[in-house]
């Protein structure tokens, strides 16, 4: 497996990396930049003004009088703060679920304490008791699990982990992700940035899970895993320290693609006016503003260009990683 270095990148890929780096830097420093106009603050004297230096609206204003440049910079911040954590968390969740499903299949026999923890967590999630009761139950179960952990763990009943993970992933995949997220956002009402990260994570883990599960099926049969077992390591340690690090390798390739997909999804949601609060800047929301002034090209072109360049950059890096593997 070859390592990816700056020198191994092609010219366009270097540009892509430069753009993405600039985006991350812009996202970090946006609140500290000396912008003449903050985002989500209308300039009532400059509604739908084209780009010009007259009123320091360098990229113009939208039909609500908001500065396009500020919206772009803070939209980049939203994109980074939303898609990067959501993609990483979805990859992490998918890796754990897919890795476990691939390693143990349907024949794993978790110890009693894990059954106890799993049943309590599942019951809590499904029944939705009041938070206090849930916490009390969770703490009591955790205590019980710790007590059981001091004794010698006895294998419990076989658990169909692979079927559960595959079934849940298939169930999530049967509904288009946009429809699923729109439905969940509609049920939740207006969602915060953190809420949207959670929503994206919970709806995006199946793809990484499938990749890791498939890779794990190959890895678990390799000699070094057998050697670790023969050395007397527990199944959990073999999985965590030896098998999983090898099984998650494909995620390095799909992470940029996953981010691109989430960025598109966030932009679509914002364009439709669903999800983030209206005062949170977003490229999708900026694009939607052109409906009120179809002749204002600057309201459409700048956020569309940012979105397109970012998606192409992520796609370009994915190709590089795929080639290097």
């Amino acid at each position: 497996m070859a390592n990816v270095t700056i020198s191994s990148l092609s010219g366009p890929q270097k540009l892509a990396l430069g753009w993405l780096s600039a985006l991350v830097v812009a996202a970090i420093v946006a609140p500290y930049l000396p912008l003449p106009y903050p985002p989500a603050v209308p300039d009532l004297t400059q509604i739908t003004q084209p780009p010009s230096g007259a009123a320091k609206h360098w990229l113009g204003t939208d039909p609500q009088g908001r500065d396009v440049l500020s919206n772009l910079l803070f939209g980049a911040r939203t994109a980074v703060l939303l898609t990067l954590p959501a993609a990483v968390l979805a990859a992490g969740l998918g890796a754990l679920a897919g890795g476990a499903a691939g390693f143990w299949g349907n024949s794993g026999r978790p110890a009693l304490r894990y059954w106890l923890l799993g049943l309590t967590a599942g019951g809590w999630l499904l029944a939705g008791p009041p938070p206090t009761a849930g916490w009390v139950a969770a703490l009591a179960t955790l205590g019980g699990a710790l007590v059981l952990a001091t004794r010698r763990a006895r294998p419990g009943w076989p658990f169909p982990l692979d079927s559960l993970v595959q079934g849940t992933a298939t169930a999530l995949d049967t509904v288009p992700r946009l429809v699923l997220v729109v439905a969940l956002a509609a049920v939740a009402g207006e969602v915060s940035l953190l809420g949207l990260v959670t929503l994206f994570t919970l709806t995006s883990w199946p793809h990484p899970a499938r990749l890791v599960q498939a890779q794990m099926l190959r890895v678990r049969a390799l000699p070094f895993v057998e050697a670790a077992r023969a050395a007397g390591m527990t199944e959990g340690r073999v999985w965590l320290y030896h098998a999983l690090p090898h099984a998650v390798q494909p995620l390095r390739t799909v992470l940029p693609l996953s981010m691109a997909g989430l960025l598109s999804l966030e932009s679509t949601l914002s364009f439709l006016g669903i999800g983030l609060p209206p005062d949170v800047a977003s490229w999708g929301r900026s694009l939607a503003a052109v409906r009120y002034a179809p002749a204002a090209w600057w309201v459409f072109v700048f956020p569309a260009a940012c979105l397109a360049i970012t998606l192409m950059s992520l796609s370009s890096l994915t190709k590089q990683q795929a080639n290097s593997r």
Partner: protein
Amino acid sequence: MRILKFVAAAGFFLLGNCSPRVPPTAIRIRWAHDPGTLDPLALPNQQAVDVANLLHCGLLQIDYDRQFYAPSLAESLPTVQLIGDSLTRLSYRLRAAAAWDDGHPVLAHDVAFTLKLMYFPGLPNEGTRAQYSFIRALRYDTNDARSFTLECRGQSPGFALSSGDFPILSEAAFDPQHQLRRISLAQLQDWPTTAPLDSSLATLAKRYLALTAGSRAGYLASCGPYQLTAWKKDRYLSFRRKAHWWADRLPNPPFVLRAQPRQLQFVIIPDAVTASLALQRGEVDLYPQMPAPEFDRLRHSSTTRAALNFYQATSYDIMYAGFNMRRPALADALTRQALSHLFDAAGLLRATQLGQGQRTVGLIHPSNRADYNDSLALVPYAPAKAAALLRQAGWQRGAGTDGGWQRRGSNGTTQFLHLQLRYRTGESAFEVIAFQFRAAAAQLGIPVVLQPTEAAVYTSSLQAGDFDVYVRVLKGNPFVFNFAPILHSRAIGAGNFPGFGTLASDRLIEAVAAADSPAHRARLLRRFQAMMQAEAPLVPLFFLANCIAARRELTGLHVTGIKPGYAISALERVEQPVPTP
């Protein structure tokens, strides 16, 4: 064979493109939201009022040609008799031709029944009850079943008009046993809220609610010119002209009794931009209350100018913000006054209406020179003054730039000044106002959470008091000055969204409605405007211009400032000549 099929298909295609398009029969009008209910007693919004005017008739109705009230079911405007110094008698006579769908004549008993329903316990009549509380009794003419006299408390000259502006309902349809005749109007008006109904009255209430539930209200026996043919909630309402309407038998029907369109369809399109596209594509024929920037854009576009006509008139629709006075933080006038200074009304008028509108100190239009209180100053945009007023109201700002405002409440609890601003989605103007207020409040360290709300649930959210600040358009008219449905304490939970109402304000509102002369009413209205500015339950921002765009083939709009801004029943579609190549 394949060649034959191809030729046939091509022929159909060519014929389809050469032959003139058959215009749809229904006149399609854009509505921003669904009326929600067709109950003629509830009438929670202008859409519901428009439906009621199609399905039912009032004693009087607005003549959009003359822009004044004209007799509809009544033969003429009422004769007015002043009794002593506090009573007015209004004598009406119903038209001999006026009849229900089954051919039975409309009689004084139907009018009495309708008035009693306005006070009947358990019915959704809070709004109408507040509006018509000046009518205390209806006296029948023993010699003529079509004549009656309304006894009104007070001597307002406006009574002659407002006493006839409500839909008359059929007694036979709701109360075939005449159960309500044994109870007088005064008895119902004084009915204790906790007093139970006897079984026959309870049955009547249930029957009314059952008959007016959902779309059933659209199929009631009525005396209006149209009948409902379809109501798909949040999509459209369709109406068909009755084939045998009683007014068609009049030799020379007046303007208010003419109903031109054979079919009407109100298409619900919440989003203003989508509605504009629908108009341009010919999917709707009429777009009333078009946002000023879109109106201006279409008017100056060569492509749309050829297909559309544009109309503009002064309107009595006012853009305003309101505060939820039930919230402890907003319960005192000083805090509300302070927050009023955070709305940049002048800038908002320029930005959202391109300056086409008029600022105001209150709910009276500035063009009404007699009643408008010109001694009051317009509330300026002044964040510094807002901060000073907040301190005066006992608020203290926390340390640091992000420090919020807090104060000790009367019960010893700490109150925090953070606000939730609710507005209807789909219109840019509401968004701009919300953003501007939020930005101004943020400068002072007051956090404001924006709550864009779908039209379908917006009014119910306001009625439930689920907001701190809201932005809305209030539709008014130049004839009647009865603010009871929106600001009287009796209307809290219905149309009085801020929850405003003190003994003094209730009395003043009642006095305005009952003022015995224009001069007296003007004095009271000026006091009312001063009181509203001091109490600040609402922040009147500006009056809007009535901008209407319609397809060129639509005529007879009679565009006016009186709501809904055009004459629905006078609309006509005139075939445009097909241009020859």
